[in-house]
């Protein structure tokens, strides 16, 4: 358990308030800076610095920032501080003055959006949620006002915001002689095992500290008991080794989510989808549909210009630009791309990746040149495969021509030449709803070290799970089931999550 000495600062002086009441202020003779020095000499690693003037006036003054700077420059103490912070600039200035962590209390309730922005910009590790509890209710504004929020709800709110460290004070006991509310901490420890819990307030002696260590609390903030000499900091620090700090549950390996990709087959600017690339049915305007999928949680979009003819080539560049304006997720455009120049134009129009299919089979150097000039990450090779006996053949020209080329060998060559991703479609399954060809996918995955998108055959929710589970697919693509509302993207993601795969929900 970390032992964190506290210094409360009012008008530049070291003080203690009784139960947060400014009328009951005790001023101590040692300055905050001198006291910080003493605490460091005693072996403290951290310091809890409370800006009472700031809390009272609702601002962070240059004087207080100067104090942080002097303590930070003059000692090795890691400072956590709060009080009076009202804006992102206050928070930034406090961090830049040398504070390691910002303690936010009232702000959590009065300006949650500001706290969210601060967490986003400065990182969650830099923040501690200070929750002052009376009974079960969290108090704000120097304990004077109720937040209307129960302590558990407040913990969940903090967690949901990304905060992992809470500092909990029982305001009825702080500065009194009743001892810390050990039961409160024990309950929180049980209900919120993933939060780092710092106890604050009410510590009278080393027995109280031991009771908190038994909870176990991760840290304890001690103020008055140090000032009046009822506990000795040096002894406490020796009794509780100040080891490395709890850093939260750090995930290991690879955090990539399985991507769910609606595919929009485009013909003359409209979305189409048929069975085995025939019998096309109209399913709407591509940009409107793209926006809808984006809002529904699609991770990526693929646009395939399936009947691109020379005269209509330019429509796809315009489409890419309009989609790029409308969505906040990446998207790939494929179909009819024959040159690096076409690909470059698509990327410039706003596409994130360009997929090539027949043109790559006809001239594999196109993949090499695209990867060289535009980057592997932007280069996708689409492979349409058909099962023939115990192997798969590569089809081109929208499935109309069997090249006789072995699909697995082609997959390997495509990656060797520079494809950063493969979009593998089973021609046999496409549009049938019978499930993905997991055998084909698993074989491709064994041969290459790039992400593979499974395509062709999406039918039931479990077929998506199979593509990932048995096919080892990194992403799953589907069209009809989404266009015609068989199920939603969210349902697919929930099915994957239930099967323990990471998804962005």
């Amino acid at each position, binding site marked *: 358990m970390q032992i964190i000495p506290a210094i409360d600062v009012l008008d530049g002086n070291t003080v203690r308030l009784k139960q947060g009441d400014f009328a009951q202020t005790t001023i101590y003779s040692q300055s905050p800076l001198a006291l910080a020095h003493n605490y460091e000499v005693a072996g403290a690693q951290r310091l809890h610095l409370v800006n009472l003037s700031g809390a009272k006036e609702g601002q962070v003054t240059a004087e207080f920032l100067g104090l942080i700077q002097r303590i930070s420059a003059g000692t090795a103490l890691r400072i956590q501080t709060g009080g009076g912070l009202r804006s*992102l600039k206050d928070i930034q200035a406090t961090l830049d003055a040398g504070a390691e962590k910002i303690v936010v209390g009232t702000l959590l309730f009065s300006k949650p959006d500001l706290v969210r922005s601060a967490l*986003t*910009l400065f990182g*969650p590790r830099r923040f501690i949620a200070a929750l002052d509890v009376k009974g079960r209710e969290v108090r704000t504004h120097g304990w004077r006002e109720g937040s209307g929020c129960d302590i558990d709800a407040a913990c969940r709110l903090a967690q949901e915001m990304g905060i992992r460290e809470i500092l909990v004070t029982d305001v009825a006991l702080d500065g009194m002689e009743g001892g810390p509310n050990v039961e409160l901490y024990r309950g929180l420890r049980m209900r919120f095992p993933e939060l780092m819990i710092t106890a604050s307030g009410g510590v009278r002696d080393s027995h109280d500290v031991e009771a908190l260590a038994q909870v176990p609390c991760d840290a304890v903030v001690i103020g008055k008991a140090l000032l009046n000499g009822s506990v000795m900091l040096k002894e406490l620090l020796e009794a509780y080794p100040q080891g490395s700090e709890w850093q939260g549950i750090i995930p290991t*390996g*690879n955090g990539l989510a399985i991507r769910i990709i609606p595919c929009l087959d485009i013909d003359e600017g409209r979305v189409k989808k048929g069975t085995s690339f025939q019998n096309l049915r109209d399913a709407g305007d591509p940009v409107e549909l793209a926006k809808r999928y984006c809002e529904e949680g699609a991770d990526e979009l693929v646009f395939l210009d399936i009947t691109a003819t020379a005269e209509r080539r330019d429509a796809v560049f315009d489409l890419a630009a309009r989609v*790029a304006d409308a969505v906040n997720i990446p998207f790939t455009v494929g179909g009819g791309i024959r040159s690096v120049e076409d690909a470059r134009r698509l990327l410039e129009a706003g596409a*994130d990746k360009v997929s090539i299919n027949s043109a790559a089979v006809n001239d594999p150097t196109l993949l090499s040149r695209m990867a060289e000039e535009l980057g592997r990450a932007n280069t996708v090779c689409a492979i349409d495969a058909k099962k023939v006996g115990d192997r798969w053949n590569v089809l081109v020209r929208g499935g109309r021509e069997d090249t006789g080329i072995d699909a697995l060998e082609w997959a390997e060559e495509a990656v060797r030449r520079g494809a*950063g991703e493969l979009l593998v479609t089973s021609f046999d399954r496409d549009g049938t709803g019978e499930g993905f060809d997991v055998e084909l996918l698993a074989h491709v995955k064994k041969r290459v070290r790039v992400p593979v998108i499974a395509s062709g055959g999406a039918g039931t929710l479990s077929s998506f799970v199979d593509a990932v589970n048995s096919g080892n697919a990194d992403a799953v693509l589907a069209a009809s089931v989404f266009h015609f509302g068989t199920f939603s993207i969210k349902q697919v993601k929930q099915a994957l999550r239930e099967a323990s795969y990471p998804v962005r929900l």
Partner: protein
Amino acid sequence: MANYSPLIGILRYSAGNTGSVQRALMRLHISSCIVETSEGIAAVDGLIFPGAGAAQSAMNDLRKKKLIDVIKDYPRPFLGLCLGMQLLFDHSEEGDTECLGIIPGNVSILPDDVIKPHMGWNLLSTGSYAYFVHGYSCMPHDPLMTTMTAQYGTEICAGVRKKNFFGLQWHPEKSGQAGDNYLLSFVELCK
């Protein structure tokens, strides 16, 4: 003050993918303009520094455009994206490139045992998913400058800050709500 809408500059140079950033800001109703000169940079409330491509040619172009010192001395909120974040560091392994030296640390190629580039939606330490596309990653000397991380073979630095200089390894313009939130927060700081 609360209603003041800041003007965000997007720095255009050889490695900048200004289009997608500009589109994202437009979608979020944030005023922006493309800037290419020190005068243009001086006129905006905050600067976004996109990046795509190779470190070496990007630095050469900044040098040619005499923007190196302008960037180093930039006093207002500054946000480097992807390669734009990497260029804030001292040195990049990519092409053995000396970078801007604003954030102490280096940029190294991703570990051998992972697929490169790191592409896709990865979980940030903040709890959100973000869209990544990169082959190199940053290592600030001071871990406190790391604002967020992600796991990809090893723990990678996904966001960084030193004073007014912010950086993201991922693409906020392509990261759905998480990206929108970051851009809006950054703009809030530019007010």
